């Protein structure tokens, strides 16, 4: 590490501690979160968590960045054709010099998902297909019930952001979204509405790590 980079790292850490306080800084810096799916939800959630000083993120998606993603996902023209996990890593390291990233351009299945997330503190489900969301919840809630799991359902269309909420379903299982707006019916995802839902997921994650109860 050259001196200039070392100075940036020290200053970045100092600024984070200044904003968060020592206790929260340490809690977040010591945490490892897995984000499964890096579309509208996952790209927004990852950036929020990285900005708030989460120490380590595992980013998993087999998809590559396409032009049709740019209306709502946190990628750039220069990212077209790259794996989303690699492109998002580049975006994140452009503002966070401390974070550790594990990028996995793999297709998750019920048979392999537990292996990829068994060592994390928390999992965010950010997939797009309803069936995939459902098997992911069923699989991880049964194989890794002690790892908090934050799923999302219902953020399509241009309905009010006030319909989007976070709730605890049961121990270690949280759900964010309006729980009804299906992209198959609403036809599209609108950037700020997906971002609101991703914000709910990221905030739920930070609140759990900070041990804040309602």
């Amino acid at each position, binding site marked *: 590490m050259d001196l200039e980079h070392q100075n940036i790292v020290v200053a970045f850490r100092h600024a984070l501690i200044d904003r968060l306080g020592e206790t929260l800084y340490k809690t977040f810096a010591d945490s490892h979160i897995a984000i499964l*799916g890096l579309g509208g939800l996952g790209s927004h959630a990852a950036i929020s968590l990285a900005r708030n000083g989460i120490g380590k993120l595992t980013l998993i998606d087999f998809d590559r960045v396409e032009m049709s993603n740019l209306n709502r996902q946190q990628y750039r023209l220069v990212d077209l054709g790259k794996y989303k996990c690699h492109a998002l890593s580049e975006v994140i390291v452009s503002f966070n010099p401390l974070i550790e990233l594990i990028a996995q351009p793999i297709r998750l299945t019920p048979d392999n998902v537990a292996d990829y997330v068994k060592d994390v503190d928390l999992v965010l489900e950010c997939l797009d297909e309803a069936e995939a969301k*459902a098997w992911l*919840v069923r699989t991880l809630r049964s194989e890794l019930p002690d790892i908090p799991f934050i799923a999302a359902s219902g953020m399509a269309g241009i309905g009010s952001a006030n319909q989007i909420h976070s709730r605890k379903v049961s121990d270690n299982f949280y759900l964010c979204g309006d*729980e009804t707006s299906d992209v198959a019916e609403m036809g599209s995802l609108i950037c700020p509405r997906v971002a609101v839902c991703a914000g709910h997921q990221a905030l739920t994650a930070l609140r759990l790590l900070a041990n804040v109860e309602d």
Partner: protein
Amino acid sequence: MPFINGKKESKYSGVSVHEYLAVQQFDERRIAVEYNGKILPEKDYDKVILKDGDQLEVVTFVGGG
């Protein structure tokens, strides 16, 4: 009586989870079922009969992300 998604549902006392899901026309590929705070594996939908005090949560997923 059992509580289903937070509501008292007396008419489903003695009914299997599978039957409840069928009556309510849930698409089993798009749901996760929590039974008394734990995920209920699909293979047990038939075996679990809802009884007094049970808590059943059926979470339905819609597409988009």
